[in-house]
């Protein structure tokens, strides 16, 4: 079964620092890849997604992610973080496509704190 690893559980950065959050998945078939974000007191929101095409995906708020199939990775990046990026970030991968729809398998999440 599919599994997802996020390498860092807690990350602390100063404003304007660059961010890279690692995400690796285990199953190497056809996958859809997602990053979701949960800001303090808010519900889970889609940050960006990859279904096919250009492996460099751009999302909201200046975030981007790169799909590297050979490394089973989908790392999230942002060149310069802001205090408002403080949140928990979840990488998710769909399991094998099934008749009843794609099951999302989530990583453990990374809590990002940006110091102002």
């Amino acid at each position, binding site marked *: 079964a599919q599994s997802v690893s996020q390498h860092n559980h807690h990350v602390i950065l100063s404003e304007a620092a660059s961010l890279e959050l690692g995400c690796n998945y285990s199953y190497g078939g056809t996958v*859809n890849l*997602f990053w*979701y974000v949960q800001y303090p007191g808010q*519900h*889970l*929101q*889609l940050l960006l*997604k990859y279904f096919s095409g250009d492996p460099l995906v751009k999302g909201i708020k200046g975030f981007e992610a790169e799909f590297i199939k050979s490394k089973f990775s989908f790392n999230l990046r942002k060149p310069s973080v802001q205090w408002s990026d403080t949140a928990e970030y*979840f990488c*998710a991968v*769909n399991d094998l*496509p099934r*008749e*009843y*729809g*794609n*099951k*999302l*398998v*989530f*990583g*453990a*999440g990374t809590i990002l704190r940006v110091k102002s």
Partner: protein
Amino acid sequence: SAVISQKPSRDICQRGTSLTIQCQVDSQVTMMFWYRQQPGQSLTLIATANQGSEATYESGFVIDKFPISRPNLTFSTLTVSNLSPEDSSIYLCSVSREITDTQYFGPGTRLTVL
């Protein structure tokens, strides 16, 4: 994306009782899902709510403990039965318009069992 609401937003329940959580979407969607997020952990899929038929449960989740209804394309309920403190979690509803489409999440229901 769809607008998803859940009721209640939070509840405190006694051991042995049940809680029913409602998920309402502002437009028709093909797929509805129920997830659990235990304290300090990630999200785990409980089941896929199928309209007009029994839900499809993931390994480790059973219908007697987590009965699910989906009477139409905009509404679903999840009941957590015979509550124990281990059921204290956030329960989230998600939806997607098509079978292989992006999932969007509701605000969640925070359940505490005493």
